[in-house]
């Protein structure tokens, strides 16, 4: 409800490969901060948060686009601009679930 009265949240998303991938106005972004999933809405207090590897979801109206980010930061500015900076942000459908499982098993075995 409070989205009406606030300026739209402008999000610029930078990855190492493409410079600014996208810069557009969205309603909300949910980012995988080290302290947990954090929802960023217009009017959010200025914050810097570090990511842990996880899912970033961008909400525009009724559409949600999800990306997996490897690590990175979000800088939320006082004017409702949020900069999301990552090395890798991949749309979820580009991830091969079998490979993820296999590598998880491999690495867990190496750990023990």
């Amino acid at each position, binding site marked *: 409800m409070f989205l009406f009265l606030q300026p739209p949240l402008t999000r610029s998303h930078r990855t*190492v*490969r493409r410079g600014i991938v996208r810069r557009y106005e969205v309603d909300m972004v949910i980012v995988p901060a080290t302290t947990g999933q954090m929802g960023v809405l217009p009017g959010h207090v200025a914050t810097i948060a570090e990511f842990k*590897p996880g899912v970033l979801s961008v909400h525009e109206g009724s559409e949600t686009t999800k990306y*997996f980010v*490897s*690590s*990175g930061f979000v800088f939320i500015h006082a004017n409702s601009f949020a900069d999301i900076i990552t*090395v*890798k942000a*991949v749309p979820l*459908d*580009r*991830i*091969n679930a079998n*490979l*993820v499982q296999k*590598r998880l098993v491999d690495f867990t075995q190496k750990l023990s």
Partner: protein
Amino acid sequence: MASNAAVPFWRAAGMTYITYSNICANLVRNCLKEPYKTDALSREKVHFSISKWTDGKPEKPTLRTDSPEE
């Protein structure tokens, strides 16, 4: 004075944030579906020549081709 913040786990493991972030990115790259995976991995290959300098002169350069796996 003692430092206020706890040392982050990657710093405690002896790496910088950039090394940690690149390792994470690499793990993700290796889990992609096919055309994207080879594209991403080939994009990260580096090919360069290094030469050490002594007494103001370069020594013989070495060529290196590295891919992201260490």
